[in-house]
């Protein structure tokens, strides 16, 4: 009974905790932004706008339905797994201990600096390092075959809804948790070591102010059919919803573009930036004529495992072959 209560409260929490992406207030703001965009930019009537936003074909599509199911299943899996994951505090403590062994550093060496600068720099640092680590990890998820096998689950969505953020393989979820724990630990330990207990975050309703701003600027529209585009110059700095939608496109020229979460500068710096295009021109998913079966839960959860297994076996086989070749060659030489 306790577990059931924990489970339901964890699910509810996703919608009532401002630290979470699908916090209902953020969803509401996203709806308002979408409404304004359709009415002003696309000159649609309110009725048409609402029909467009709450498109039944999208929210009740096979793809979206599997998003909802994955959400419910993953919450349960994470509830069981998360106590075994290393926490940010464990890593932060280890780093904090390590800093003590560095001669040119001393604990609280900058405690004299005004608190406002410390809090401001910590808030910016935390947001930036978090966003950058998301970029890096995301890039690897696409470039490494083993990781791509997992990340493909997310890209197999043929429609995008705010719930698509949860369309994630649980093993990928573990990678994301580790990423988050490590980046938080880096910020916490460095700042706490240098500035002591003066460190805190600028927050709004308990959330990093920058994360809050990112969310009320319509973060939920990234995974949606509402292709809001920014001015070209702005898309060098912040990823527009349309830029992220393009990331989900199957077109060859859109492959491995726009890995960023909030900031576009990482894509710009590392050559993976692509400006947005009209949403209607995009075809979403992993390949043309994608099978409906790709939305089956069994496939979504197990295919990546099979694929990884196959990949590893192939690698081992290749190494074996190479090894055999070298040995055989050696024997041949010996015999001759």
């Amino acid at each position, binding site marked *: 009974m306790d577990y059931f209560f924990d489970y339901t409260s964890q699910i509810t929490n996703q919608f009532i905790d401002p*630290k*979470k*992406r699908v916090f209902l207030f953020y969803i509401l703001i996203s709806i308002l932004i979408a409404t304004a965009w359709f009415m002003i930019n696309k000159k649609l009537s309110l009725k048409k706008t609402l029909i467009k936003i709450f498109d039944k074909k999208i929210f009740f599509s096979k793809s979206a339905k599997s998003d909802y199911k994955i959400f419910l299943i*993953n919450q349960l*899996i*994470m509830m069981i*797994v*998360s106590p075994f*994951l290393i*926490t*940010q*505090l464990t890593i*932060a*403590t280890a780093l*904090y*201990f390590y800093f*003590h*062994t*560095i*001669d040119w550093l*001393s*604990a*609280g060496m900058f405690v004299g600096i005004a608190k406002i600068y410390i809090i401001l720099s910590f808030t910016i640092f*935390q947001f930036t390092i978090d966003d950058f680590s*998301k970029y890096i990890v*995301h890039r690897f998820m696409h470039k490494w075959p083993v990781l791509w096998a997992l*990340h493909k689950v*997310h890209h197999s969505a043929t429609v995008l809804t705010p719930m*698509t*953020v*949860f*369309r*994630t393989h*649980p093993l*990928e*979820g*573990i990678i*994301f*948790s580790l990423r*988050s*724990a490590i980046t*938080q*630990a880096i910020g*916490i*330990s460095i700042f*706490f070591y240098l500035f*002591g*207990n003066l*460190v*805190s*975050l600028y*927050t709004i309703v*308990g959330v*990093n102010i920058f994360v809050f701003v990112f969310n009320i600027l319509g973060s939920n529209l*990234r995974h949606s059919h509402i292709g809001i585009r920014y001015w070209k110059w702005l898309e060098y700095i912040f990823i527009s919803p349309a830029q992220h939608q393009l990331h989900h496109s199957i077109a060859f020229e859109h492959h491995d573009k726009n890995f960023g*979460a909030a900031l576009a500068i990482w894509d710009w710096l590392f050559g993976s930036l692509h400006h947005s295009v009209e949403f209607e021109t995009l075809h979403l998913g992993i390949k043309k004529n994608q099978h409906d079966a790709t939305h089956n839960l069994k496939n979504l959860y197990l295919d990546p495992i099979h694929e990884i297994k196959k990949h590893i076996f192939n690698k081992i086989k290749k190494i074996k072959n190479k090894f055999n070749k070298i040995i055989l060659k050696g024997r041949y030489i010996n015999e001759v």
Partner: protein
Amino acid sequence: MKKFLISIITSLFTLGFAYSTFADGHKVYGPYPITLKGYDGDKTNSVKYTGQMARQVLHDSLKALVKSGDVAKMMAYYNGEDNLEIIAPKSKDDFKIKQTMVSEIGSGNLSGKTYKGAIAGWGNLTGPEVLEHMMNKAGEVEGGFDPNTGFDYTQLISKFAMGAVFYNQAANNYLGKKMEIGQKPNSEPYKEGSYYTGKEHSWDEAFGYWGSAAHALTLSAEQNYNVAKRKDMSSADFNGDGVVDLYSEYTFAHAYYASSYDKSGKTNYLATVNQAFIDGRQVITDANGRNLNFDERTKLLAQRDIIVDNWQKVIAESVFKYAGSTYKDIVALEIIIEANGDTSDAFRTYAKHWGELKGFALALQCGPENLGETAVKLNRMMGLGPVLLNASQVVGIDSNGNFIKDQAQDWNEFKLHMLKIQKLMVDEFGVVAKAKDQLGDMEALAGSMGSADSAEND
């Protein structure tokens, strides 16, 4: 009908009365009836732990004496000689203490009851040798403090003695060995001619070593704490005779430290231990002078485990606290050194806190549990002596009892060790109060950022 009503009301009253006396009886340790079979004397209360309370006073007095450097006088209290005046605690303002001589409470010594095993953290001397060595060394320096080694003997002697005598005697002997089957049976007098049984008296003696007032459960943690600080006469004077009886109305030793942590509201050590003492004593009393059966023994040992476990935690909390204080002192020292300031006061504070840390850490190793690796880590990390400002440190004791000094641990590493000691206390003993937690703020910061686990794709 009327008769029926009267009988109901009467029985309710009787029940209520019985309940209130029952409840009250369970909040104060003693008196408990005589249960010894065949006893025909005029005693009515089987509780007696006068020797333990005398030792509490001997310890407090010895602690006060260290700074005098008078070794003969220290030895007199250590050996519990006759006609000793109580040096501490003494009356203060309106806090009037009943006794002025140790013998008014009881008789006993510290020397005979000190942990006999080797103390790895102090040159492998035995417990009594450690105390004697410390007292002799205290006699060689001014005010109980040696700036050349950083040893604050007042702290070292007091904190170690509390563990080596009180915790050791209670946990290893009275609640340990003497609770075993066949040892001090409940069907026989404790000693020939005693009016209390073997088990009754063993349990009572352990309670005396714990050091709390008999009525501690009727007070809040704050009140128990203030009694030890001689600031709360009304809380101390339970029988209302206008004086504080050091036998049953005062907070000593580890009970005092328990109250200091419980004050934070995070722990409840004092009440937990006192309740366990009372519940365990009730099991013995209920056996009414016969040997305990399996069920009673199980119940009694469950209470014993609660006591020993919480007692150990109180000492571990103290190690945690003083490791934190030492860390802060080192940071403060570093700032002064950087600014070329006068370090003498800051160094004295640092040495005091390190002395408390060392004393409690040695005390922790006098319990029934072999701490193994934890003890090794603890002793190595804090060192035999504190790191001194000239980068030297006491590293050993030669066969003549002289300290051997050598190059110290790296200053930064030593500072880090204080944090590791705090972590060790959390990991190994599950301390909760965490006074002077040097990582607490970081923990709070991490908490404010929320959990990192989320299966979300951005």
